[in-house]
């Protein structure tokens, strides 16, 4: 056993250098004043106080959370039916559909997002089509709509794949059993299919909400220069302003929010799966 354990040392080393130390550095930056070096650390909560007392930052945080939430909800409601159709199609078809879903991910996200600028801009594809039908051109680009559209577009494959795999591995005889016990298709869906696919939905939510809440490329490109989400604020603090300490503090706030949201979704997941187990012990 001991000799095998040694094989993990390189990984532990790698994790230390690449994950743990950068994290610790962020924590250190977040709690220290600007302009000091490792030798003369000056601890402070100023960065956090600054963030939580500035209405602009708080409203940006609120908008980010709201956009991420809307994105996630849309991904669930659009993604579930698609996943359901894929999971219930014939095997070869299923593989084709999954390929089609993952295909765009082979292309760089920046390029794909740029493409949307061309489609949504004032004299872009959508407005041309609208004009052909004699409709007034709409302002689409640089709005909440375009940002959410970009996020849903980019993140929905994660949702679809998660839900699809939980639907596909479901025991078909459970569906037969529900039918057999008198459930029609809708009742069967509500009482068996949906509850059993919830773990997939929950992991899909995690995979969509996390990148959505901290995304900065999509809001920058599709929201325009003045469009600020919390990801953009962090990016600005590090790259433009050079306030590494403040940027680190905001990152930490985000990390805590993400951690809380993960715990909450896990709890939701467990409450469905583990409810019976808890009751069983009574």
């Amino acid at each position: 056993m001991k000799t095998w354990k040694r094989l993990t040392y390189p990984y532990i080393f790698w994790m230390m250098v690449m994950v743990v130390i950068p994290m610790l550095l962020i924590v250190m930056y977040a709690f220290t004043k600007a302009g000091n070096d490792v030798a003369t650390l000056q601890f402070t909560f100023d960065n956090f106080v600054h963030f939580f007392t500035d209405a602009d930052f708080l409203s940006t945080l609120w908008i980010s959370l709201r956009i991420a939430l809307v994105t996630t909800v849309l991904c669930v409601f659009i993604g579930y039916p698609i996943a359901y159709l894929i999971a219930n199609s014939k095997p070869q078809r299923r593989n084709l559909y999954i390929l089609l879903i993952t295909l765009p991910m082979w292309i760089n996200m920046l390029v794909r997002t740029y493409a949307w600028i061309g489609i949504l801009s004032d004299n872009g594809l959508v407005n041309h089509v609208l004009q052909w039908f004699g409709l007034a051109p709409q302002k689409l680009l640089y709005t909440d709509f375009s940002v959410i559209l970009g996020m849903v577009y980019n993140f929905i494959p994660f949702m679809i794949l998660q839900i699809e795999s939980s639907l596909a591995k479901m025991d078909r005889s459970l569906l037969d059993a529900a039918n057999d016990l008198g459930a029609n298709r809708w009742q069967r869906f509500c009482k068996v299919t949906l509850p059993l696919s919830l773990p997939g939905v929950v992991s899909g939510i995690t995979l969509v909400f996390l990148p959505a809440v901290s995304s900065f490329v999509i809001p920058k490109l599709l929201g325009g220069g003045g469009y600020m989400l919390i990801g953009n604020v962090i990016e600005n603090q590090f790259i433009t302003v050079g306030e590494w300490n403040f940027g680190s503090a905001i990152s930490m706030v985000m990390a805590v929010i993400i951690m809380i949201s993960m715990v909450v979704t896990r709890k939701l997941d467990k409450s469905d799966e583990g409810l019976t187990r808890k009751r069983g012990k009574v």
Partner: protein
Amino acid sequence: MTENNCLIRFRNIVKDFDGQLVLKGISLDIYENEFVTLLGPSGCGKTTLLRILAGFLRQSEGAVIFAGQDISELPPYQRELNTVFQKYALFPHMNVYENIAFGLKIKKMSKDVIEQKVLKMLKLINLEGYEKRDVTLLSGGQQQRIAIARALVNEPKVLLLDEPLAALDLKLRKEMQYELKRIQQEVGITFIYVTHDQEEALTMSDKIVVMKDGEIQQVGSPIDIYNEPQNRYVANFIGESNIIPGVMLKDYKVRFDDMNFECVDFGFKDNEAVDVVIRPEDLDIVAENSGKLNGVVKSVLFKGVHYEIMVETVPGTTVSVKMIVTKEHDVASSDAKERISANSFFVDLEDVKELNDAEIIARADAQAWDPESDEYLSISKIEYDIKAEIGNYPVTFSTVGGTEITVNIMVVEQQYVENKKKNEAISAFNFFKTVDEIKESVAIDTDLKTWANAQGWKLSDESDVEIEDVEYDFDPDTITAGVYEVSFSTKGRVLKVHTTDLSEEGAEIGLNFQPEDIHVMSKVGY
């Protein structure tokens, strides 16, 4: 039975999957309160028939009549029957109570009625107090009973069970057999049970439907099916049996293995070819010459309650050949750079015409090799002069390097024994082998069969007859050069006897049975 209590009527059900016929026209009546078993090996269509009845599959042709009404168009959730699935199919996200209550909740029954019914069911299946348990943490037997309760709580007119005990271990399976029968008698509804286990079918059923390849072979009570199987297939599938081909001379008179016997069967054509079944437990061992058959005990197996004794009543057909064992048969070149080897061999007079170079090399097992590198060398020249007459003809094999070996091709008439009584023949050749080849053999019986080219066949249609016994009087590990006799035999008529009396292997005994112990069946073409 009258038309009134016929609950389910399958009318000429045909089902194909992508052109492959799974059910070939099943017609079957099932009555109220019957325990009906669909019995057959996997792939016989029994589960397909059940799924058609449940509504999960749509038949390609035919109709399913349920209580006088054609239900072919009804979806599963509108049919008044419930299913217990092979792997239980309990809902993993619900506890025991919720699983059982599922059907009642769908029917929107009031809470207190549901509770009452679920608790009653739990009592029926002896799992009171389990309502809050997680179904995934229960044992297979408990899950099975919950699946039964979940189906029965809906008070269906028919319960369908698709191999429900297949996943349980033997002891639990036996317990559940009694349990199922008890539940069926208690709730008093029709059970349709699918299984491939004949013992399960015999234990529980009122009626057994034996199926094979999408067709019904026989329908009847367990006793009927066991005692009066309609054909060889049913007899083999249900219980153990000795099946002997015979001829029905006239009513109550059957002939097999060259002897005439009294029987209780009638209604066959005179001299019709039939199959005769004698169950192993119907044969009694008696003293030699005091029974209807005589035989030799070939083997005795202890089976717990009884011994299973194999008795050979008609010996097989035997042919003996000579095995000529030589020490060495390879020749080295003068400079010892090459070695060559070959066997003399026998050829049947009729096969001489078919001999060619390749065939001769193969039969003589001619090989040349370099003793240092052990690499094979090609045999470049082969010289022989052979006539289709009995005699010895030399054949010379040589390599490019000029190393050569001469052996004999012996044209002979094949050793051939015909057994008209058993309608079979057996043949084999004398053959040459070296001491080393015999010592190196890991499966000497099989090798002897191959070397002697031993074959058995039926006289009537030349189909193969297996060679069961190989006998020889040497020890393969210590064999020396010389001539040995090897004999090959087909299997004789061996009857299986179940008895509580022990017999010795090799004992000569008599076998007795009564006319009613013989059951005559018509032959089926398969």
